[in-house]
């Protein structure tokens, strides 16, 4: 019997990880100039969110249209630290109150708000990058999942949260930098993050972190919890009557997704050099779901490729056809949804892999999902 075998990595999975590592750490750096590599670094930061969504949505069936909230929170935590470091009294000597971030000075703040001060500490900021999104996710999760809000309702409500946070950030510009966001970030503990070398280093850090996140995600997927998630997605009631507190599992996975998104946001801030409310709102949140869908919502590795592919398509379409690129992008989304419902991962496992391995045993026909759902 094969039952006892539940290795953390099957051959296929190990190969997929290896190929991704090859692509991220060898292929892309070899093939791209510094500018393009930095762009891919930015795309990778979105991949963190997409991986989280593959867990929440693909495995757990929880579609969040508010992942931008967590991405933004993580990003803002990082940006606050960097901004404080950049706002030394010397750098800001022309301000009426030197030593505070420039946008505060423009908004007549004469003193750093209390809740900003812990962000002088890098350690605190790094912890906050993960913890703040998790706390938010936890609150939303408890409120929603305990009340058994799910499906489309949950999606729309998370969308509302994205709207709320955007309005708040924009409205409280004295504390948050408003529409402009927190810009002009310079150094991380004295290390200039704007140089080409720094961008390259950050790219690798980004890749490495992504792998950490992927390993965590993979472990979760492979654990009993991963199977419970899938079970929950299909038969929530059965899981409940098997003795599981369904809400706590949903909360956990939602928080984990939020933590991933937060890390992605922080890396975005470092890689791009600023953080702004446009990364928080509804549009980026939906786009993140699309990255995940294009990659194949069930596959965490697929999610990474999805994020890379869609963003790369966006960049190159818009460079080649600045006036028409939206047709291409919109068409891409529709085509993926209609032709490849399981995204890139689906194409890989259903079309390419069988061809490659030549091991196409004629399997029993897949049961067609019963159409007549009540």
């Amino acid at each position: 019997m094969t039952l006892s075998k539940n290795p953390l990595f099957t051959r296929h999975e190990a190969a997929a990880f290896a190929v991704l590592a090859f692509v991220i750490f060898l292929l892309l750096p070899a093939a791209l100039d510094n500018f393009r590599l930095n762009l891919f670094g930015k795309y990778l930061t979105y991949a963190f969110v997409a991986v989280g969504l593959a867990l929440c949505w693909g495995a757990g069936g929880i579609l969040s249209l508010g992942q931008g909230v967590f991405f933004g929170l993580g990003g803002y935590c990082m940006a606050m630290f960097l901004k404080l470091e950049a706002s030394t009294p010397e750098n800001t000597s022309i301000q009426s109150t030197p030593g505070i971030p420039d946008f505060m000075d423009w908004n007549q703040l004469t003193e750093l708000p209390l809740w900003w001060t812990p962000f002088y500490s890098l350690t605190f900021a790094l912890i906050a990058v993960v913890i703040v999104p998790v706390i938010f996710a936890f609150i939303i999760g408890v409120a929603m999942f305990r009340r058994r809000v799910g499906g489309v309702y949950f999606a729309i409500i998370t969308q509302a949260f994205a709207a709320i946070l955007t309005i708040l950030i924009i409205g409280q510009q004295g504390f948050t930098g408003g529409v402009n966001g927190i810009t002009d970030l310079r150094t991380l503990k004295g290390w200039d993050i704007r140089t080409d070398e720094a961008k390259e280093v950050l790219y690798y850090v980004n890749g490495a972190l992504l792998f950490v996140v992927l390993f965590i995600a993979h472990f979760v997927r492979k654990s009993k919890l991963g199977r419970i998630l899938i079970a929950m997605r299909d038969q929530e009631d059965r899981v409940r009557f098997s003795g599981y507190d369904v809400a706590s599992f949903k909360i956990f996975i939602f928080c984990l997704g939020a933590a991933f998104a937060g890390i992605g946001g922080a890396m975005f801030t470092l890689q791009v050099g600023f953080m702004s409310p446009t990364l928080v709102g509804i549009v980026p949140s939906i786009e993140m779901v699309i990255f995940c869908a294009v990659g194949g919502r069930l596959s965490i590795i697929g999610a990474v490729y999805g994020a890379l592919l869609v963003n790369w398509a966006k960049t190159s379409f818009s460079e080649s056809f600045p006036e028409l690129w939206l047709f291409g992008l919109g068409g891409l989304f529709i085509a993926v949804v209609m032709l490849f419902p399981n995204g890139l991962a689906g194409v890989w496992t259903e079309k390419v892999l069988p061809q490659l391995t030549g091991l196409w045993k004629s399997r029993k026909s897949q049961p067609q999902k019963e159409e007549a759902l009540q």
Partner: protein
Amino acid sequence: MLNVQSLSAAYGASEVLHGVDINVPAGEIVAIMGRNGMGKTTLMKTLMGIIPEKSGAVDVDGTPITGLKSHQRVAKGVAYVPQGRMIFSAMTVQENVETGLTVTGQSKVPDDIYELFPVLLDMKGRRGGNLSGGQQQQLAIARALASNPKVLLLDEPTEGIQPSIIREMARTLRKIRDQKGLTIVVSEQVLSFALDVADRVMVIENGSFVHDSPRDGIDEAKVSKFLSV
């Protein structure tokens, strides 16, 4: 009335019905028996146009319905009570029955339908999804009858029904047949009901018919053996 010729059907690549022939004259009740997974539901769904025919032909009252969409088949006089009821759960009982009127153009449910199933009249305003399993089954039959069919397909209609109603149902189906000259095809696993209701019993096994006999003079032991391997 219902004429099926070498009908085959498949889910994806796997063929489940292998060229079956059925010929049911008007006013006859045929019971199709078979164990789980032998293809009863598949046959019904194929007749209803829910699963496409792979090959073969189906006629109702002389008009071919092969290849037609479900609703077109209903218009040609086929009605269907699916296994698992599939009533419209958010709609009231009355609305459920009324959906059956779509092809008839009527807007009022004929009284005789409620006469057959008085519970439904009591629960007219209740949501279909809130009914008990057995009540839903009755609703599904009423809904099918509302389209005033020539051929009625029932897929294991006794599943989850209380004994007295099962017995009643056999009587009712025969009554409807007599009143309206309906042709009925009913799939079943329970021999006693089949013998109660049907004029003819056919046994399906792995997608082909292996036995076909009028009720009178049926070899019960043989059929039982088919059913309990």
